[in-house]
Structures are given as C-alpha cells and as structure tokens.
C-alpha cells in the first residue's frame, strides 16, 4: 500500500506537478525580475503596510478585539507539513509582502519584505 501510493504519487508529480512547477517558477521569476527592474516594490511597500494597519484597526472595531488575528497566508504556502487549525477560526489579515525593496551597498544591507525567499535573495545578490 505504502509503495503503491508513493509510486503513484511519483508519476503524478512527474506528469502534472513538474510542468505546473515549471510554469509557476517561470511566472514568479519573471514577476520578481519585473518588480525589481521597474523598482515598483519600494513605492508600493508603504501602501501595503498601511493596508495591514487599516485591517488591524478594522479588526478592533469589528470583533471588539475578541477573536485573535493571523495572516491570510494559506498553510500550503508555509514551511510546516501541517495545517494550523487557527487559520480557520482566527481573523485573517492579508499581508501580501514578498519583494526585495532595496540594497544599501554602503551599509552592506538589503531591505526586504518578510515573505521574500532565499532563492529571490541569492538570485539578486549573486546574479
């Protein structure tokens, strides 16, 4: 049973997930390059943060602060294998922050949004 499932899964992964991943990765890397090239992320960042702040303030009014908050990021996008049950019951706040903002060569730092991944960072810092 175990072997069958794993074998079957391997085929499914190869036939469907590999092509899907290819499209997904191509889309994401084009998107990331475009965002960085247009340098649109730094301008949008402040607006996006304001939107998070607005949602938090709305949460206080809507729930009276009684239902705790969490991000709206679905579990399948997170690192853990498991799904957090709190995602179903807590107040979801959209935190859509996934871009590199700027590199400060003098200071030797990079400013980035929290959902930036290592691949994005290494691709940018080491083309």
């Amino acid at each position: 049973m175990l072997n069958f499932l794993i074998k079957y899964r391997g085929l499914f992964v190869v036939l469907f997930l590999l092509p899907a991943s290819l499209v997904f990765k191509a889309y994401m890397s084009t998107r990331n390059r475009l965002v960085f090239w247009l340098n649109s992320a730094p301008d949008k960042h402040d607006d996006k943060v304001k939107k998070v702040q607005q949602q938090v303030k709305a949460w206080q009014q809507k729930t009276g602060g009684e239902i705790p908050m969490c991000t709206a990021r679905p579990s399948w996008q997170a690192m853990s294998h498991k799904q957090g049950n709190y995602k179903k019951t807590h107040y979801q706040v959209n935190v859509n922050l996934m871009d590199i903002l700027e590199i400060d060569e003098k200071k030797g730092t990079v400013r980035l949004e929290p959902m930036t991944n290592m691949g994005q960072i290494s691709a940018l810092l080491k083309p």
Partner: protein
Amino acid sequence: MINGFGIESSSYKYGLFQSICESLEIVTADGELVKCSKEENSELFYAIPWSYGSLGFLVCAEIKIVPSKDYVQLSYIPFKSKHDFIKRFTEESLKPANEAYDFIEGLMYSEQEGVLMLGNFSDKVPSGKTKNAINNFWKPWFYEYVRAILKQDKEQEEWIPLRHYYHRHTRALFWEMALIIPFGNSPWFRYLLGWMSPPEVSLLKLTDAEAVHKLYDAHHMDQDLLLPLSNLDKSLSYLKQEVDFHPLWLCPMRVFDTPIRGMVNPQPNEQMFVDVGIYGEPNVENYNSKQTTRKLEAFMREMGGFQALYADTFQTREEFREMFDHTLLDKLRVQTGATKAFPEPFDKVSRAART
C-alpha cells in the same frame, strides 16, 4: 525565518538567520508601525525571533549582506569513525573567526560513517583544479554524490559556483525527494526530465492526497534538533537508539550571547550548537510518531536544546515553556496589547493546534 528560525552552513559564524537582521518593522495589535533594532525598541527586537507572529505582523526586515565571492572551494572529508568525525567537526566549529572556514556541514550516512564538508569563498578556479556546477540538472543529487565520496573513502576538493553551493540541497530537498520521485536520481530521469525539477514544494503540499498526508504522519519524521555541540556524541547515540535514520544533517550554529535574552536562551557558556536534521522514515521497530517525538523532546530539554517549530511538537504547554524562555515575550505581549490580538506561539505550532 525571522519569526521562526533559519539556518545555513555559515550559521556557526553568523548565527541563525535572525542574527543577521539589523532592524525589523512590525504592525502591532493597535495598528501602529513599530521599528526596532539593537538600539531602538531593543526589547521588542530581541523578542521577535521564534515569536511566530505573536507580537504583530512583520512587514519589513533589514538584513546584513555577507561579502561573497564567485565560488566555494569545498573539501569533502570522509570518516569511518564517529569519534574522529565529531572531533574534527568540533575543532573546526570552535576555531576563532579569522581562522575558521566560511562553511561547515556534515552528513552522517550510518552510525559511524560520515562526510565533513569544509568550504571557503574563492574568486576563481585555479588552473588544474576541478570546477563542479553541482546543480546542473543532469548531475546526481548532492547527498548521493557525497555518499559516493564516502564510499571512495578519499578526501576531495572542488570549486562550486556560489549559488550552486547555497542551493545544494534544493533539488533533492535534502533527501526527501527520494520518497516523492523514487526514480528522480536515476540517470535517465535526470537527463530527460531533470531540467523541470524540483517540483515546487508549495504545489506538492497543495495537491497531496489525504492518504499521503496520513502516511507521512504515521511513518515519517521531520525534526531539527538544536543541541549543544558538547553533547553531539551522546546525542547521535541516542538518535540511533530511538530513531535509527540516516542520512543525518549536521550543521553547527552559534547562539549569540545577546544583551537581552529572547526565547532561545541557553546556558551562559553554551553558545555552539548543532542542528541535527532528521528527514525521513525511522527504522526503529514500532515507530510511533507521538511517543518517539515526545522522547526526543524530553532529551532536547534535558540537554538544554531546542526544537525547530515548523516540525511537529508534541510537548505540553508547560514543557514548551520550559524549552523556550517566554519571560521577554510575555512581557512584551502585555506591553503591546498582543495578548488577545495574537495567539501565543504554542497555540500555533503545537501538534494539538495542527492537522
């Protein structure tokens, strides 16, 4: 990686990913944007690592860049004795920064056999030396390539393009890809379809059937045990007895003695840890994910170690609070009004809170 944890083979020099953060910005429970660093709102700054979003929404991070070069000059040193391996691994990890390598990583392929990898940044490949772009799609999976070096039992050295080095475990997801695509490392697959690999992990998770999820839950273990380096020998023996899985990933990591102590707050003289990564199906008879994991958790607490929290934790709230120091976090949660606004870490990461 900031609200939780992130590690690399240079973490014994620079610490965990959160240690190279210069400043952080979060939106707190009252909707305010607060910036913090070592100098500004320093208590908040030291409370955020491992807080799992229990203080607010992280919206920006400023991170130190480590100057790099185009290649990593990597030595592979095979060992046939655990004792010798640990001795060298410990020596290299404890060297002062100016003498130490840039990267240290170990892979144990059985109780006694392993390969130590020591790397330095390098500008170019000297003439007569080998360059190896390990992530080209037709190349074997990195851990299998290293296993072959162990079999040859001969020290080797080669120059790896930097980005290939950093992402050396990406294609095989350490060694988990062998369970997902069992034929993924065979030459025909690599040459024909390797260019499409690896599948995107998030899509894998999205499409996994309930049956696969259950199988993993019952037969699989994903844990990173962060244990003091001084106890590595004992820890490996214990893991052999309770889990019996190889390869094991061994990555040294430094926990800095910060002026304000956060959730990971080891004994004052324990700064050097080892991340022991277990990713696979334990070979012990009657493996039970809950019972075995609980044993490992008790062992970590006894050793003064810590558990990576992307993984299942079966600890009780009290045990969890014994492992992770909540003093600063609790104080700041009250101060910033987070107590009711955000669940505390245990209520997000414990096995009871996850399905």
